[in-house]
């Protein structure tokens, strides 16, 4: 099994699907000769040609809208929003259109579209290259949202997303791109959309998370194991549809739930997970549900002094596990 980075996993998934299915094409800003700003599609233009690797005008609404139109015609577009912070002009297309096309046409039209975008902070990306956008889209039925964090999950889920018959928002945490390495199976494989992964088994506290925070949570769990607390880390991988079963099974076992995400706390994904646990498993719990999340300020600032306290750290997660385990 080859070892690769998350970035290489994205590239390989795109490359293999482009080769496998001529309906797949890529459109976005700087995806052509530049090969995307992270060099994910480097060499694609030479291999697949200008018709399938389309450098778009700097206009996100049309990146999404044109891709939607092509998807309605049976293509499998992979549209790239260069940074998640730039997705807002495309919000109307993704939420108002893509998510509703199947429903509003009673299945007459469909929208098998993937919108990929790098998100997340911790890279000195300042206000407009650090944002987490999942909560803004999480509310919308009709969309699927993947936010994997390992090379294997990234490659397998991206392939699954391209083959999916509904619109998928595919979130890639940009700090994981080169930081996280791991084994990835050879050949054609998928990871099912909507299934969580038990990243670390444990018996005392369930830590429910996704994205870069999976790695921080596993780190925190390893640190605290020496204190005799075994935390179970659930990596959601897909945040809509949500794998309720894995969450509730874990909580039933550990009787304690900690939710961790980098996105701001208020109205975040964690709020929904907490509500599901409260609605369906309240009497399983021995302690209140806790959340470790980004602060409720408008954005992640550029200075280290703004960025560091915004990002949940393994230390903060470990402290929260310790607190909840003591209750």
């Amino acid at each position, binding site marked *: 099994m080859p070892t690769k980075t998350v970035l290489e996993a994205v590239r390989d998934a795109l490359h293999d699907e482009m080769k496998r299915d001529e309906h797949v*094409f890529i459109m976005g800003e700087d995806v052509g000769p530049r090969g995307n700003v992270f060099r994910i599609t480097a060499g694609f233009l030479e291999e697949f040609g200008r*018709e*399938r690797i389309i450098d*778009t*005008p700097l*206009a996100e*609404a*049309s990146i*999404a*809208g*044109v*891709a*939607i*139109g*092509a*998807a*309605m*015609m*049976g*293509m499998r*577009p992979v549209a790239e929003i260069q940074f998640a912070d730039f997705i807002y*002009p495309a919000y*109307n*297309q993704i939420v*108002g*259109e893509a998510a*509703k*096309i*199947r*429903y*509003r*046409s*009673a*299945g*007459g*039209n*469909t929208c098998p579209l993937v919108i990929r975008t790098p998100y997340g902070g911790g890279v000195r990306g300042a206000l407009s290259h650090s944002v987490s956008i999942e909560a803004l889209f999480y509310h919308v*039925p*009709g969309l*699927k949202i993947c936010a994997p964090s390992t090379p294997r999950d990234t490659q397998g889920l991206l392939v699954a997303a391209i083959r*999916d*018959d*509904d619109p998928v928002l595919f979130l890639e945490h940009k700090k994981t791109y080169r930081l996280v390495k791991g084994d990835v199976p050879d050949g054609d494989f998928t990871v099912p959309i*909507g299934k969580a992964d038990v990243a670390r088994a444990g018996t005392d506290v369930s830590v429910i998370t996704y994205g870069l925070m999976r790695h921080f949570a596993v780190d925190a769990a390893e640190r605290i194991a020496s204190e005799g607390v075994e935390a179970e880390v659930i990596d959601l991988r897909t945040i*809509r*549809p*949500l794998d*309720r079963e894995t969450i509730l099974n874990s909580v039933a076992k550990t009787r304690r739930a900690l939710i961790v995400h980098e996105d701001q706390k208020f109205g975040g994904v964690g709020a929904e997970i907490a509500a599901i646990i409260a609605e369906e498993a309240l009497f399983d719990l021995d302690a209140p549900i806790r959340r470790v999340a980004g602060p409720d300020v408008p954005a992640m600032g550029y200075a280290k002094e703004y960025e560091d306290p915004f990002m949940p750290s393994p230390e903060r997660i470990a402290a929260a596990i310790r607190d909840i385990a003591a209750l």
Partner: protein
Amino acid sequence: MKSEAKIRAALPEGLLPETVRDMYERMVLTRLCDDRAFALNRQGKIPFAATCQGHEAAQMGAAFAIKRGSDWVFPYYRDTALAIGVGVTPRQQLMCLFARKADVFSSGRQFPNHYSVPELHIASISSIIAAHVTHGVGAALTFSMRKQPLIALISFGEGATSEGEWHEAMNFAGIHKLPCVFFCENNEYAISVPQRLQMAVKNVADRAAAYGFAGVICDGLDPIATYSAVRDAVEKARRGDGPTLVEAKVYRAMSHTSDDNQLTYRTSEEIESVKLRDPIPRFEAWLKDRGFIDDATIKDVKAKAQTAVDEATDWAEAQPPPSEDDLFTHVYATGPLS
């Protein structure tokens, strides 16, 4: 232009007398469907109605300029005549008005006149103004990529041309010389806002210059003139010579929808004057002048259309509404998920 003004355009080569009669019949049918929608709304039988009165000639001309059923249409909510021109039936129209379960457009989910008929290659649209314009461009991109001899006809009102997405769509189509026709039905009002508060240019067609392709203007009260303008644009697109923006000058004969009252922003003199410019009697006179139709045929056409609309109304009213289960269908390919 006065009511008695004749349509001057000659019958374009290739357009047969039976084709123009067909166009006329569908315009009459559209008008009766439109009238029926407002009548049903006043009777409290349907919650909402939208009109295309004043646009029938432009829409029918555009419909007949494409390969109906092959080329894709991305209409907007005022395109009843375009839809009927492409092949929507009175029963389908009435099923959508009554929001019935078997409504082919949306199974009773969408407002009236939000067409989606995959078999006729009419794409699903929302009410978000200009949101479908990039979709039509994406379809044209597909035709170009897949070397399919198809074009996308994308229609909208002049108000839509203020939207940023409209400009993004025009820009993208111009860059890639895509096989599409942008068809603007300029009726001078976006609900209540007149064109002079919508844009500083005199014609919507003027905007095309910024995107590297031609903008042309036609008399949208004349189905033949509109047919010719759109057909030229369609042929150009099919040759691989890129898009055209066709602006059909029309008027809106009624309020925006059944929920609007145009007397709050339009003078009664203006409202009366536009009624005199009804495209249907004008087309009738033109057809008679050329011997394509006579009074007996006109009477017959109107009677048949009335019967079809009456039959469709009774039939659709008796059809079942969506059931409780329908709330949760077509969320995802695999059913509802959370």
